[in-house]
């Protein structure tokens, strides 16, 4: 059963259970992202220190003037870390968005049109899925240069096939449904059927896929920057900080612990958001990990799922496990 149908039926009948509240996973994930965004806004508008210029003694520890200390060139670590988190958040969000737009477009077309169009698109998708994301990003870096934009392009395109597969499966299940047939028989054009009738019904897996891809991009961006192929100096980047400051690991361990924490926090935030959205939009299975500890909640609801929903769930998770 689809989300909009469910909402419509709840509204009409008023007898079914209401949609559950957003869980702690969602709020903790969203909370971390909002805090990072707020800090990033502060650092972008009026940073306490210039992130690119020395403002104190090199390799100083935390103090009143420098909350998290300074790096080897005397630059404020707090300012640079927040800006690094901002860059990482931007790359992961924009990369996942690009992947979502491209992947969803092809997934919807493949699922709705079917036939040889479907076959061609899905074989291309299979081929791209076989490429390791980090390798593609490295090659793109060599061809068009390093930096945030090439990274977004490369990672967006590498992760697009995942979206295409996740979108295609529910569309296939839905394209023969009565409301779609009704729309087609009324003479609605194919593109409009896709956008107005199919897309709103497959948003659940889209949101979940988006957040989980963003979390993977955070890790890949960090790995590439660690290798010197991602965000370039002197722009702050958590991955590059770790590689640069390994030298000072014993003199000022905070310099690598803090960027590691930023990477973990960002990746975890996206993951929690994905889990929270999954629980909220399609609460029909036992969550693998629940902050509330109410293990029975998902299981109880699983009984009420329809066949269509199960197809959707299965497909969604097949794709995730392939990433």
């Amino acid at each position: 059963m689809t989300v909009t149908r469910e909402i419509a039926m709840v509204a009409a009948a008023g007898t079914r259970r209401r949609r559950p509240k957003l869980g702690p996973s969602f709020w903790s994930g969203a909370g971390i992202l909002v805090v990072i965004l707020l800090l990033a806004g502060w650092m972008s508008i009026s940073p306490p220190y210039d992130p690119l210029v020395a403002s104190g003694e090199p390799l100083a520890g935390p103090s009143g003037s420098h909350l998290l200390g300074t790096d080897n060139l005397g630059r404020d670590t707090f300012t640079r870390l927040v800006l690094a988190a901002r860059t990482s958040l931007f790359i992961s969000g924009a990369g996942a968005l690009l992947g979502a737009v491209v992947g969803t477009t092809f997934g919807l077309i493949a699922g709705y049109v079917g036939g040889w169009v479907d076959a061609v698109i899905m074989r291309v998708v299979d081929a791209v899925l076989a490429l390791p994301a980090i390798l593609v990003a490295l090659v793109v870096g060599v061809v068009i240069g390093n930096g945030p934009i090439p990274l977004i392009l490369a990672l967006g395109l590498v992760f697009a096939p995942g979206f295409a597969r996740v979108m295609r499966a529910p569309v296939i299940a839905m394209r023969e449904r009565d409301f779609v047939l009704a729309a087609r028989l009324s003479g609605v054009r194919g593109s409009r059927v896709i956008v107005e009738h199919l897309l709103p019904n497959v948003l659940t897996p889209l949101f979940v896929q988006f957040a989980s891809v963003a979390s993977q991009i955070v890790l890949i961006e960090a790995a590439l920057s660690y290798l010197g192929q991602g965000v370039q100096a002197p722009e702050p980047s958590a991955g590059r900080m770790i590689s640069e400051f390994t030298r000072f690991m014993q003199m000022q361990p905070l310099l690598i612990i803090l960027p590691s924490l930023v990477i973990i926090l960002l990746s975890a935030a996206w993951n929690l958001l994905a889990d929270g959205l999954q629980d909220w939009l399609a609460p029909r299975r036992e969550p693998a990990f629940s902050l509330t500890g109410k293990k029975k909640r998902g299981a109880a609801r699983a009984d009420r799922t329809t066949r269509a929903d199960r197809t959707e769930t299965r497909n969604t998770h097949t794709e995730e496990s392939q990433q």
Partner: protein
Amino acid sequence: MNKRFLAGLAVATTTVLALTGCASGGGDGAAEPAGDPVAGGTLTWGVSAEPAAGGIDPLVASSAPAEVVQAMAYDTLLTRDDDGNVQPALATEWEQSDDLTWVFQLRDDVTFSDGTPFDAGDVVYSFESRLDGGTNATYLSLLESVEATGDYEVTFTFTEPDGTFLDAVSAQQTFLIVGEEAYGNATEEERQTLTAGTGAYQVTEWNQGVSITMTKNENYWGDEPYIDTIVFELYTDENTLLAAVQQGSVQAAAFVDGSLAQQAEAVGFTLGEAAFRRNLAVYVNPESGPLSDLNVRRAISLALDRQQIVDTAMLGNAGISFIPPAGDPGAPDPMTLPYHERDVDEAKRLLEEAGQPNPEITLSYMGDVAAAHHPVYEMMQQQLAEVGITLNLKATPLAEISPVFTTGESWTDLIAIPGSPRASGAYYLEPVLLEGGYYNHWDGNPDAEKARDLLTQAKSATSPDEYADLMDQLATEAADKALEFVPAAVPVTFEVWDSNKLQGYTTDSYTARSALDSAWLTQ
């Protein structure tokens, strides 16, 4: 679940890093009273690189790790003390009988490690083989002939006076003497992996990727060395090498990264005082863009706060330098050269005069290697920004930069390529100024004309004094016309050793580890 696994892994990694970061080993810095030297023992010395192409072939290989081994295993005709004075080695006397002729008297009590005696024929063989396609053959371009004029006398004849010859022949890693029999009869593989020289220690085993073992040469002509065996163990990651030092797995180590050597010093190791012989050179392409204007180049030189680069970017592990590197024997005092001191106002005035108050310049550097040098470029960027120059840093993989110094490929604006020590001052500017030089984009440029003339004159100077005088003028001219930038100079390696165990060792100025010949291990 995969994501959660990765996140968990990241947590674990950080925890491990935090633990290792916090757990620095203890150790007392006080060295025991030296006492009398004792013979015997095995010294384990950690290094972060092993010889590259050509292995340790004394006539072919020229990588820095190879040169260290070669300097221990082979001798040269002359050598130098730490003050730069020429000292006898395989030759006891040397004389420039006229502008074109040098005569060397050789020792008659030397044998190679394989037992064959050394004589003038080996010297002739060494130089002639080197001329025939060996490394540094270009240093001998003016050599007409080398002849054995006696059993222990060699005469070098030149087509024109060669001002660099005495420097080159006394550099410990340049004209190594090999045995006509020992080297000539060896296979290529033997030449690259073993040694048969006249030095105190010879390579007896090279386990590639693991270690190089050098054993005492029983036939050594000098005083018998104390240590039996020296093993150079390879730790490609210097942070791992530091851990090995702290655990006591090695008794000595050589670091490229000075801050790691400082950390080893902090746990009780002795840090040798190494000469700043490696310029962090930044080469200029003045053919187009803002750098074609002399005033812009001078403004860059004036915008650099070299002392801040040394103190902050390099954490004190570097020195102010121009060309040649400040640690070279006979190099001019950098504080006497033009544009050595920061002057922001004058730099801005020069930029105005050039009509380019805010030029934008690209600096490419090796982004994937030599991480210890990266802060220098970031600091240059900060300093240049203060006078209005935008320096765009381009971290380029070594693989993309290497065509510049192997085939002479061009670059945009500035490129940073750390140099290596050379036998004589003129050799640093040869590739920049002379035709065919890999860094030469100055052909036809009037700014470089005087420097080129001075270099040519110095190379054909008839006496060492004349050469030194011309080299001083050349250093001043190169700094005045800002033909190349040197933000700082660093030692080739920083040596640390446990002075409780390794006695009598000191770092020499030439990365030759020559003091190992007379050092000993406490039992």
